[in-house]
């Protein structure tokens, strides 16, 4: 395994509820790379992220992060990874500040208010909403707070589960720009998505997952982007078969 691989799936096989969910999945994500995992509903995308966080144990194979086996090093790896869950699971009874502060304090990396404010600006959370409890937020606004939290962790690895779901087109563009900028500064990003075109905009590499198996990998040419139409066709083909 090479030193600059931040994430590495080695013949990963995972069962959930007694049924196989991932089967012999192998891939690697290098430092500063943006990797997108594409696949249909129930393909095993979220499961892959949870396995890298040590929240699910592989049956066979290994999930490696920062050169370490995730199993047995969960705490160390979670400290270096920010996770954006699939469902925005922040607290409805807290406002944006309180939510973000709480999770940052649990991570033992509290941030001053102006940094929070800056992160909210970056994700485009309206200033007048920040003092309101999340129970009054729209889906996209909640997603923005969750993204802000992931950014504020300032960790070298981001594991994002459908980060753009619920975001309007402008917010998606802003988000993509944000991720690209982060990667340029050395962050490694692995994101799960259904959004073929979004994936092509940010990811240098896209893995296609189908019913627990990695059926293809698409790489962007140097100085170019992955051809979204080609990817879309591949996705549709894999679904049809």
């Amino acid at each position: 395994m090479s030193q600059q691989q931040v994430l590495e799936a080695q013949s990963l096989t995972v069962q959930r509820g007694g049924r196989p969910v991932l089967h012999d999945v192998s891939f690697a994500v290098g430092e500063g790379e943006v990797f997108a995992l594409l696949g249909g509903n129930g393909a095993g995308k979220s499961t892959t992220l949870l396995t890298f966080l040590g929240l699910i144990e592989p049956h066979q194979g290994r999930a490696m992060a920062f050169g370490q086996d995730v199993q047995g090093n969960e705490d160390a790896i979670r400290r270096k990874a920010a996770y954006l869950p699939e469902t925005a699971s922040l607290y409805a009874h807290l406002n944006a500040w309180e939510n973000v502060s709480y999770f940052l304090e649990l991570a033992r990396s509290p941030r001053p208010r102006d940094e929070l404010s800056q992160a909210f600006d970056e994700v485009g959370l309206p200033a007048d909403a920040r003092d309101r409890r999340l129970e009054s937020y729209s889906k996209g606004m909640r997603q923005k707070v969750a993204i802000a939290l992931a950014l504020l962790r300032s960790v070298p690895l981001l594991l994002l589960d459908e980060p753009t779901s619920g975001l309007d087109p402008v917010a998606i563009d802003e988000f993509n720009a944000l991720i690209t900028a982060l990667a340029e500064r050395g962050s490694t990003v692995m994101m799960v998505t259904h959004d073929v075109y979004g994936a092509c905009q940010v990811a240098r590499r896209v893995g296609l997952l189908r019913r627990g198996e990695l059926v293809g990998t698409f790489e962007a040419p140097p100085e170019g982007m992955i051809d979204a139409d080609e990817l879309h066709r591949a996705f549709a083909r894999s679904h049809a078969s």
Partner: protein
Amino acid sequence: MNPVIRVAAEEWRYWRRSRLGLAASLVIVSVLLASALATWRQVAIERNQRAELQTTAENIFYDQPARHPHRMVHYGHYVFRTPPPLALIDPGVDEYTGAAVFLEGHRQNSATFSPAYSGPHGGSFVSLSPATVYQVLVPLMLIALGFSALARERERGSDLLLLAAPMSARGLWLGKTLALAAAAALVLLPLLAAVLSATGFALDGIALVLGYGLYLLGWVCLTTSVSARSRSSSNALAVLLSVWLAVCVVLPRIAASGAEVLLPVPSKIEADLAVAKAMRELGDGHNAADPAFEQLRANLLVQHGVDRVEDLPVNIRGVVAEAAEAEQKQVMDGFSEAYAQQEQAQAEAVRWSSFLSPLLAIRGFSTSLAGTDLAHRHRFLVEAEQARYQFVQDLNRIHASDLTYTDDIRRSSDAGAEQRTRVSPDNWRSLAKFRLTPDSLADRLSRGMPFFLLLAVFLALATGLGITARPAGVR
């Protein structure tokens, strides 16, 4: 801030914002107030009343004019049991049993076969003593406050975010437990205040509060552990309410009813009839000529070398009365001791059930320490009986030595004899005043210790259930 404490603080904020805290504190404060008021009033009244009654009874008794000693035997005398200071918290069996006994000749009165004592049921929902509130209602409040502590996070998916924070599943459980434990500690403060005001900084009071602390901490851990292991809040609530119902309502009833069926204690009427029947077979101590005392009479005549009872240097009537009382005591003691043993056996059976219900364990601990358990009540009865016997026999001996037989039999027809058969009140004024000494601290602590250990086991099990819970809904 330490993440565990941060989680606890966050839980408090959730309670405040969701009004759960407000609802719970309103309920508990009003229940505590009601119970405090009721108990305080009752104890104040009882204390004054008993002290006053005791003094009045003593004054009346000691102020009797010169009287025939056997009249005083029948006149009788009340003794009272002043509730121990911690009865303020836990009246225990005092709630059901008489605190006064009427001491008189030829009878062991009602406290022995107390009509009010209704078997080992002691302390179910009869009254709202502080003990009942802390044993039954506070756990319910803790459940209401804590059932969703971890199940809620799982339900809403925030558990994944917490675990990824990173926060260990154990740390999360500890934080939620700490939050609920702090609520329990807050609810314990009024108890601590009541205990301190009742006993000052005494070991028994502090131990009592510690016992309740252990019991409530057991409930706290049980609540968060079940919450950690449940798929949803509603599952957690259902499980916890079932456990509460079993521990606080069903098991104590089953234990009590089981003890009654397996180890029956005769009813008061049955017991009274049996005593009366046995007593009828004894001689009549009021009749010196009763054939039952033939032997006694003959021995006495021989002993003093005279032919007629009139010539004896002692009053045969007093001697017979003393002998009869002794015989009666033997018969009555047989019954009352057997009865006490049966009651004790029932209590013992219920005590063993404490393995199944922490409520029974805290109840045993609490009444042991307060000195309001069955053992304490039995000692009261035994000591009161000793006082009764001594008082009756002292008067009988006065009857035998200070009165002549001739005067005694002509009392109703001869005014002079009637005057001469009265003895001075000094004779009963000198009777020792009865005061029940409270159980020693060592006694109460050693009776409470097994229950304390059971409570510790309860806490250990509940804790084990929590720290071994697998994290999150991720399987």
